[in-house]
């Protein structure tokens, strides 16, 4: 008996689909005509709302989109690649022409960028990129990749740690979850940095899943195991750092230097009250906003040069000294950026990235240094040619010159960390650029 009801089901569904198809062409045309003028839809994708980093990320993208007079859409994927892709393609189906944001796993970048080129959607992304996969591999619709260099962040963390514990001490390393490229590379950078300090050593490293409770429990066990020999803990994000701080406090270890990454409202208080020694800020909201702006510019006819397709972006080190400045500037209700000013199309001459940006040379990209190329893959030679033609140097200079609005640069009073840094791997070894106010 449920068999025939099932038949009914299928027939009904088929009907609906056909109706839908006819309907879609009708409405489709309307959409097109409507789309021509008036505000456009701009999509920003990110993993989950339940994460302070992405929360401010969302804020940035929203402000930028609305500043450009467009309609803001956000889509989260709970770190599920399949959801991420299907979000993008269903929005592409509904004629969203500008997309930007973060992809849950590095591998899904490939399919995402193929998709935007299939669907002719302008796309710009941040933080995660597939191994050996450049915008030029995907096609013209993938405009720019923004990347605060994870290795450089880690290396800086290492130096700061060494300084904090007087170049001599035992430290621990809390990584994110396995497979988070950013997390692991930060850890790697940290260890590389420590090699310059004979007195420094890494007792143990552990995955803390980027969560406060895991950070707590791992640290608690470390404290039992290593007792009070611990001098410092470097964490690849700040939630774990706070967890570690709580554990130390409970065990009565007061002078353990803890350094975290990603500065956001909620965690600044721990920096202020000294339970954290330092936090590295990577300007999440700015990344989101700038990516949106790039998509917008491309939609309005701007085309990135080869060198611009992959850009390394600025980050800062926060300590008690400049914590207040950061809170005042970035933790208000509105972000301090002038989004319109970032647009190349709205301000062809006096545009301003409002952050330090340096082109990345894929051939020497720190992210891929230890990853072997897939069989038969080669970085498009455009990059090599651009490098040879000196385009990289030009672009680097161009962005430096336009970087006038120094809101993102800490005040010089807050020495020694009064710089905004960005890695620069134009030369073959990774060097860190910095800009002072």
């Amino acid at each position, binding site marked *: 008996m449920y068999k025939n009801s099932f038949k009914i089901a299928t027939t009904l569904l088929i009907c609906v689909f056909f109706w839908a198809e006819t309907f879609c062409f009708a409405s489709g045309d309307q959409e097109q005509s409507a789309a021509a003028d008036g505000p456009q839809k701009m999509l920003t994708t990110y993993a989950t709302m339940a994460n302070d980093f992405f*929360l401010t990320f969302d804020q940035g993208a929203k402000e930028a989109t609305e500043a450009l007079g467009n309609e803001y859409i956000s889509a989260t994927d709970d770190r599920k690649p399949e959801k991420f892709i299907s979000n993008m393609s269903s929005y592409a189906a509904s004629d969203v022409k500008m997309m930007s944001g973060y992809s849950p796993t590095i591998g899904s970048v490939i399919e995402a960028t193929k998709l935007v080129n299939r669907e002719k959607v302008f796309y710009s992304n941040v933080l995660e990129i597939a191994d050996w996969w450049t915008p030029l591999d995907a096609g013209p619709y993938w405009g720019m990749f923004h990347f605060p260099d994870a290795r450089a962040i880690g290396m800086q963390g290492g130096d700061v740690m060494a300084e904090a514990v007087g170049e001599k001490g035992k430290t621990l390393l809390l990584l994110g979850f396995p497979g988070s490229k950013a997390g692991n590379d930060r850890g790697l950078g940290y260890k590389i940095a420590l090699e310059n300090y004979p007195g420094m050593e890494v007792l143990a490293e552990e995955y803390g899943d980027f969560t*406060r409770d895991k950070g707590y429990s791992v640290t608690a*066990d470390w404290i*039992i195991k290593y007792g009070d020999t611990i001098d410092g803990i470097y964490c690849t994000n700040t939630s774990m750092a706070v967890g570690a701080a709580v554990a130390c406090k409970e065990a009565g270890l007061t002078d353990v230097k803890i350094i975290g990454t990603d500065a*956001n*409202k909620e965690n600044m208080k721990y920096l202020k009250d000294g339970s954290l020694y330092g936090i590295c800020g990577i300007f999440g909201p700015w990344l989101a906003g700038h990516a949106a702006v790039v998509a917008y510019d491309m939609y309005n006819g701007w085309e990135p040069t080869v060198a611009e397709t992959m850009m390394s972006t600025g980050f800062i080190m926060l300590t008690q000294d400049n914590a207040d400045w950061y809170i005042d500037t970035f933790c208000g209700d509105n972000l301090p950026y002038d989004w319109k000013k970032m647009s190349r199309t709205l301000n062809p001459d006096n545009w301003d990235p409002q952050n330090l940006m340096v082109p990345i040379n894929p051939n020497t990209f720190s992210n891929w240094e230890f990853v072997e190329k897939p069989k038969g893959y080669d970085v498009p030679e455009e990059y090599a040619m651009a490098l040879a033609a000196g385009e990289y140097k030009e672009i680097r200079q161009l962005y430096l010159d336009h970087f006038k609005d120094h809101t993102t640069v800490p005040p010089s009073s807050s020495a020694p960390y009064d710089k905004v840094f960005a890695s620069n791997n134009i030369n073959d070894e990774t060097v860190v650029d910095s800009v002072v106010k």
Partner: protein
Amino acid sequence: MKESVNKMTALMKYLPLLLLVVVSLFFGILYPRFFSIQNVLNLIRQMSFLMIVSMGMTFIILMGSIDASVGANATFCGVIGALLAPYLGGGAIIIGLLAGAGVGAVNGIIVTKVKVPSFLVTLALMGALDGAALLLMHSSPVNISNQTFLDFSNGSLLFSFPNVDLIPIVIIVICYYIITKTAFGRSLYAIGGNEQATFYSGIKVRHIQVIAFMISGVMSGLAGCLQASMFEAACPYMGNSFLMNSIAAVVIGGTQLSGGVGGPLRTVFGVVLIAIIGSGMNFMGLEPATRQIVTGAIMILAVSVNIDRSKMAYVK
């Protein structure tokens, strides 16, 4: 033949303990510090949340139902506690517990009145609670500065024995009493064994089910508030890990999902085992991959040791 059976069952009784001893000895020999008072306290502290939640879960599973909303519920109550802490201080915890009870009641009432299988009701509610919690906390951690609320975990009512270590022990005692000594507990077993027969014996099955769900809710709430006060903030999804772990703990202990067989002490065993292994592997600094494999293997081992097939029609 009865003799041999009895011998077997007697043996079965001690196998789980043996397993526990072996595991902890293993770590103890590797790391002498593993047995230090300090670490024992640390262990209790680390298992405290899971212990509380699993105790609640025991009530439900004994009835043959399941409560998939424990984790989300913990987060939810933690957030409520954290939000109210500035105004009510310690009182916020009470509200948190009440909220937990409320959620439990909703579970129970939907299960008994609307008659949808508990697994689904609680699963759906899990989603709803996650959403509600995120809305309440605006998706970012709610920091707590109110001292009385923080003392709930870090303060100590008894000598210098921190509450985090004290509370789970108290909870164990209470739950053990309720389940094994009271008529309520007895009727839990009866419901798990044969719901209809219990119903026909004039036991108010529906009431008991609702109450059990409420108890489980309160436990989740307690765990949530405790966690919040320990980490000085209510974080998104902080209770997530409770769901699977608590079910695993209960089942590893030998309480059967079909209901009617098992008990609180078995759950304690399950939680302790999970905690010891977890912490032990932290000591060894194992790769996460190896951890997962070990955990899985030990789960299977523990169940095969604990499960009492003589008490089940057939294993599903």
